[in-house]
């Protein structure tokens, strides 16, 4: 790692103020991606602003079906929250299977979505749940927030403060893990009952798209007819715009979308 200046922010306002000082400033949330990137020198910020001690960014609020998760909430805290488990167990389950315990106790939801790794789990949940990303400046719909590989709608200096969504009637998430890294080679989040009519079933896919997370129209159409694992059987998902790499071809990922959608739907119905 290169030399850097470290600042510990006491509030969101303080962090924004600190960010105006350095020439290449990065916010540090859990650091589970940023620190490794700095070690390989893919990232070499002049100034790091630690968001880890900002009380207003932490915690989960559940009121009826409305859920707000503070950006600084760790995956372990999301996984363990009883109120969240009661209204949307699919999100608790997703958080419980990110990385390993050491990563889950340090990594945060805000850091994960701001980084928008194409194989991260949370983007699929946020897109399928039609969640709102709250920043210090505005509110952004998940569909507009994730713009490409490691790209988001966040502007320079903008900080994610929370994620908000209404719990659906049913939801489930399932991923096929890369055997070595355990990252999602393909992960599918299904949600039903968010809206009437055509948006009733929403299905989002992570780990497979060339441009990051996306909604699968084909799976949505099949599940809209009948929200049942069997309804996904035989659905053709096009491999165009899916990733091909040493781990899996685009065709293989297209097949995985169907299988993971089946398993996620079965989970949602269980």
């Amino acid at each position, binding site marked *: 790692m*290169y030399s850097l200046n470290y600042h510990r922010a006491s509030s969101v306002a303080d962090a924004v103020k600190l960010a105006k000082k350095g020439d290449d400033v990065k916010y540090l949330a859990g650091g589970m991606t940023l620190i490794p990137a700095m070690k390989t020198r893919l990232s070499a910020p002049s100034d790091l602003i630690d968001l880890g001690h900002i009380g207003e960014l932490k915690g989960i609020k559940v009121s009826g079906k409305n859920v707000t998760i503070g950006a600084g909430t*760790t995956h*372990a805290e999301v996984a363990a929250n009883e109120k969240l488990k009661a209204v949307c167990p699919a999100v608790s389950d997703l958080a419980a299977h990110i990385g390993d315990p*050491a990563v889950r106790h340090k990594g945060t939801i805000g850091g994960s979505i701001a980084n928008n790794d194409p194989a991260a789990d949370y983007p699929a949940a946020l897109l399928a749940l039609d969640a709102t990303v709250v920043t210090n400046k505005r509110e952004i719909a998940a569909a507009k927030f994730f713009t490409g590989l490691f790209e988001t709608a966040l502007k320079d200096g903008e900080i994610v403060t929370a994620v908000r969504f209404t719990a659906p009637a049913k939801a489930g998430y399932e991923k096929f893990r890369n055997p070595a890294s355990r990252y999602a080679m393909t992960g599918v989040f299904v949600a039903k009952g968010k809206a009437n009519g055509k948006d009733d079933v929403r299905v989002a896919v992570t780990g497979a798209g060339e441009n990051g997370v996306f909604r699968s129209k084909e799976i949505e159409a099949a599940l809209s007819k009948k929200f049942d694992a069997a309804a996904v059987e035989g659905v053709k998902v096009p491999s165009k715009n899916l990733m091909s790499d040493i781990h899996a071809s685009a065709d293989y990922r297209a097949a995985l979308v169907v299988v993971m959608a089946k398993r996620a739907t079965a989970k949602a119905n269980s």
Partner: protein
Amino acid sequence: MKRLVSMTVNGEEIELAIPPYRTLLDVLRNEGRLTGTKKGCDVGDCGACTVIMDGSPVNSCLVLGIEAEGATIETIEGQHAGPDLPHLIQEKFMDHGGAQCGFCTPGIIMMTKALLKENPNPTESEVRFAIAGNICRCTGYAKIVDAVLAAAEDLRKGRTL
């Protein structure tokens, strides 16, 4: 430029002058002279560097030392039942042959402690899930899992962590 950082390590408050880019792992091993915490992959994959920070297990290679300013850190050096007496978990690792070369052992013991504090009555699959991020390259995990389950059994009989 070095910064002065204070933290509580194994119950003792220490103050160290460290460069802000140095990881907690390197700070513990170099400035802290506590080499029990091992440096395996140094990118958060192997779990050999697991320590407990403010009650939670973390990969100390993925935390900056300066992030630990004001934190309470537990490392393998602080784990013992008394002077020259092994910690309950260490004792069970010895009884069950849970260590071979020993390089992954400090990390696994710290992860085990974090697990058992949260769940003193884990099933075998919960133990395997908890140590999923701790890699042993000598052999397998059967004896390690046996040791963790035996430690849990002793906890239920009234022994403490």
